[in-house]
């Protein structure tokens, strides 16, 4: 669900990061306030136009919401049963559109530009001794560790398979915890060494 920036020169790419974040906020708020199948229909049109303007095809759009498939599979029948098909379309549609719109922003905006906006928005927090750059760093790290943890999980799964302990939860959890702690210690050292903690 976290998309990596794809370079481009489209209007969407050139739009300032702050404006895109504001548009994303407005879009998702509108979806939530006027939650209905019609809003979802209009929202779908907006997202499709946004992706087309940014030069991305339907494959990129589907890939950006694909990680939601299991949630959708559970949510649709549950919401249908709870409030009928309109409710299912409105709630699940809103969720999918919000993720797709957020993906469009991250696909067309450099992380550094997003962090700059965040720094500016959070600047008033300096008055209560909160460092906005530290919060930006935290967000960048949260996004960064996702692929690292996925790689780590693959390694641990392979090791578990190699030892013939595929079904052992302990053989998965213990090395994951140990390696995650090790990684975070090395990451901490690297951040200090890069002067990002000063």
């Amino acid at each position, binding site marked *: 669900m976290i998309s*990596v*920036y794809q370079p481009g020169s489209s209007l969407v790419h050139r739009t300032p990061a702050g404006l895109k974040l504001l548009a994303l906020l407005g879009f998702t708020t509108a979806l939530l306030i006027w939650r209905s199948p019609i809003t979802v229909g209009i929202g779908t049109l907006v997202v499709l136009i946004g992706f087309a303007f940014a030069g991305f095809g339907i494959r990129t759009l589907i890939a950006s919401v694909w990680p939601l498939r299991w949630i959708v599979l559970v949510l649709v029948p549950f919401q249908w049963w709870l409030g009928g098909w309109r409710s299912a379309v409105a709630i699940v549609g809103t969720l999918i559109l919000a993720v797709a719109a957020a993906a469009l922003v991250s696909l067309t905006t450099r*992380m*550094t530009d997003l962090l700059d906006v965040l720094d500016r928005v959070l600047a008033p927090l300096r008055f209560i001794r909160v460092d906005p750059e530290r919060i930006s760093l935290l967000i960048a790290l949260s996004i*960064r560790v996702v692929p*690292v943890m996925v790689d780590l999980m693959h390694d641990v799964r392979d090791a578990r398979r190699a030892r013939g302990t595929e079904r052992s939860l302990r053989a998965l959890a213990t090395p994951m915890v140990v390696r995650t702690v090790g990684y975070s210690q090395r990451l901490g050292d690297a951040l200090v*060494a890069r*002067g990002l903690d000063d």
Partner: protein
Amino acid sequence: MIEFDHVGHSFGERRVLEDITCTLTESRIGIIGANGSGKSTLARMINGLVHPDEGTVLVDGLDPARQGRQVRQRVSFIFSDPDAQIVMPTVGEDIAFSLRRRSLNAEETRERTNAVLELVGLDGYVDHPAHLLSSGQKQLLALATVLVTEPSILVCDEPTTLLDLRNTREIAELLQALPQQIILVTHDLDLISDYDRVLVIDQGRIVADGAGAESCAFYRDLLGVP
């Protein structure tokens, strides 16, 4: 100039450095020693990642324990595992991230990023996802992220451990061509055999200190390896 004056350090009960005194002024300095000999701890003291229990470390007259920020503006550090050094999703962004606290405008940041990418041979990778690089390319990126800040000293703690022969050569040639003072901790004697000075660490003490070839020969004798 890096000065160690009667430096000692322990991790709990384990004594890792004992009475280290030396002044490092040469351009290319290697540190070798067996696993657990204390060489990495010694290197980490140079930019304040580890503070000595006894004695003092000074970098250009600055104490890394008390003046860490100023020291880290001069001293950069490269680790064995480049994955732990990469913070941002793309190559260009990760390099630019090092410059966040330098108050540069976007154009200056872009210019310096492109220049350092060209230097390490990663030009054309500016928008490439960092986690999809090969191990060698990740190490080159890690090197680029520190070189972009223009340090005067570069400490490298086994930077080629996870690399194949070709990538090891590439990193070694790149390091050799840099204008910075290099402190290279390694097990690969080929990398430092022509260095100006090589320290051999054994059980927390400097047991040999001389020109590259001389210290490497001493170390081979010490290990009993021809």
